[in-house]
């Protein structure tokens, strides 16, 4: 039986990419196909319609889906927040605009890559912790690739970004680094993890076990040699390897815990992003 794994174009699912590339899945007897998904929030419905068996949703997408009533469970961990990658997610400020601290964001127009998504939630938390009313900031959705353009044309005052985009904007001399709001917050919660429908996970406990083992092996491989991850990520996302290398490395952990999900649950409840009550412990596959 084939297992289709859906991930977005980022390094977060690096462990699955490496496991697929280096024959680890094969060794475990899993027949795996990797699929690139345009929008992270498309992953839960794709799981539900059996277009995918396993997907890599962000924590926020996963929790919103679960909150909305989709019966999904976390299968294994993928990427986690840690210092190095937190460092990489920053505000980039358009030249000519001064934003140095949280309070400076008030009244500014800021581009975020997705409402209700990872960066957005963290940014709102950052504002709230610093006593700034999130409503005072004019947030607009801006996809990563458009960010250099909206900064250059002056459509926004700042963008919240990470990865190679930051470097591109700095290179073009149209913007400069602003607050590193994620590392100011700290945290080590999961960013992206592997999820499946509860039905599938209960019906295929062996496959889940083998998948976990494969992910753990891939994580160890990456720990030992980052180049393995770079090659696989570049292959999967079709980005140039230099570009991937220039990005702060993701940190992978094969486990996923109720605590990690709980951290996000608290955060999202505070921001009124969840309507019902979700129990983190109930969201883990056995």
């Amino acid at each position, binding site marked *: 039986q084939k297992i289709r794994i*859906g991930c*977005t*174009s980022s390094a977060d699912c690096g462990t699955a990419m490496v496991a697929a590339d280096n024959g680890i899945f094969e060794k475990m007897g899993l027949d795996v196909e990797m*699929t*690139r*998904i*345009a*929008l992270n929030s*498309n992953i839960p*419905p*794709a799981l*539900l*319609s*059996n*277009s*995918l068996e396993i997907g890599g949703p962000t924590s926020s997408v996963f929790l919103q889906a679960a909150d909305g009533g989709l019966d999904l469970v976390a299968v294994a961990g993928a990427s986690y927040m840690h210092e190095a990658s937190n460092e990489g997610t920053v505000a980039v400020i358009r030249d000519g605009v001064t934003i140095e601290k949280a309070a400076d964001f008030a009244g500014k127009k800021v581009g975020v890559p997705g409402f209700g998504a990872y960066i957005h939630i963290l940014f709102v938390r950052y504002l709230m912790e610093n006593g700034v009313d999130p409503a005072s900031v004019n947030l607009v959705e801006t*996809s*990563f*690739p*458009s*960010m*250099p*353009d909206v900064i*250059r044309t002056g459509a926004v005052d700042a963008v919240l970004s990470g990865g*190679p*985009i930051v470097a*591109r*904007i700095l*290179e*073009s001399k*149209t913007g400069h680094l602003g607050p590193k709001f994620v590392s100011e917050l700290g945290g080590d919660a999961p960013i992206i993890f592997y999820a499946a429908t509860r039905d599938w996970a209960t019906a295929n406990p062996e496959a889940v076990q083998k998948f976990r083992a494969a992910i753990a092996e891939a994580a160890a491989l990456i720990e030992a040699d980052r180049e393995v991850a770079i090659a696989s990520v570049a292959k999967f*996302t*079709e*980005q*140039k390897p230099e*570009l991937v290398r220039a990005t702060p490395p993701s940190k992978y952990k094969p486990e996923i815990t109720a605590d990690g999900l709980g951290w996000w649950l608290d955060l999202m409840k505070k921001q009124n992003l969840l309507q019902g009550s979700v129990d983190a412990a109930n969201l883990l596959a056995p």
Partner: protein
Amino acid sequence: MSAAAVPRLRVNWLGLALPAGLLLALELWLRLSNITTESLAPPSEVFVTLLENLANGRLPAATLKTLTGAFGGLLMGGIPGLLLGIAFALVPALDRAMEVTIEALRPIPSVALLPVALMVFGFGYGMEFAIVGKSCFFMMLILTRAAVRGVEPRLREVSRVLRLSKPAMVWKIILPAILPRLFVAFRLGASLALVVSVTIEIAVNPQGLGYEIMTAREALRPDLMLACFIWIGLVGLGLNAGLLLAQRKLFGRAALAGEGVK
């Protein structure tokens, strides 16, 4: 007016001048202004990338998928739309009865329903057929209805006094009379189908040309993205030329009736 008489394969240099000029301007601007963007690349680079990806089979494979999705949807939605359009024009009572329903469903953007479609159909052609079909259905419905209403009333009277059966009237009077407009509708439908299927692929469905565009964009490869973009334009161009040719070949004079014969 005598377009049919002009030999087809003459190169339209004049028509090529305009796009060529625009491309040249873009190339110069990008090379000279030194701006940073992930959305544009010099046309020369795009051209090279285009050729590369055509040669390595990547674009042709994606094109096949997109066209399958587009035409499947066009047929599945367009044919019922055509038949209903004729029915509505011929039976005003039916038209009136369905008006509110049709007019309220028609403008609902199919994109808004993508999450639902994804859940019902999953990835693949099913979703494309459904959503492209929805768009083409309404478009054919409207255009066909307008075309039938425009048929010379005297001809409809002729069919009445000849006591043509309804199907015979449709087949012998209505269809030939609306044929030229029908072809315009079909061509519009074909480009709409292409646009919609690419949009679906960009947003959700991991296959075809839209998916290639999306991938290229996320991989920060504007040259590849624009190459796909240009290629879609070329595919559409070829499609339209092919349909026009088919129109002339298949229907000859009938398709041109009313397009100023005398």
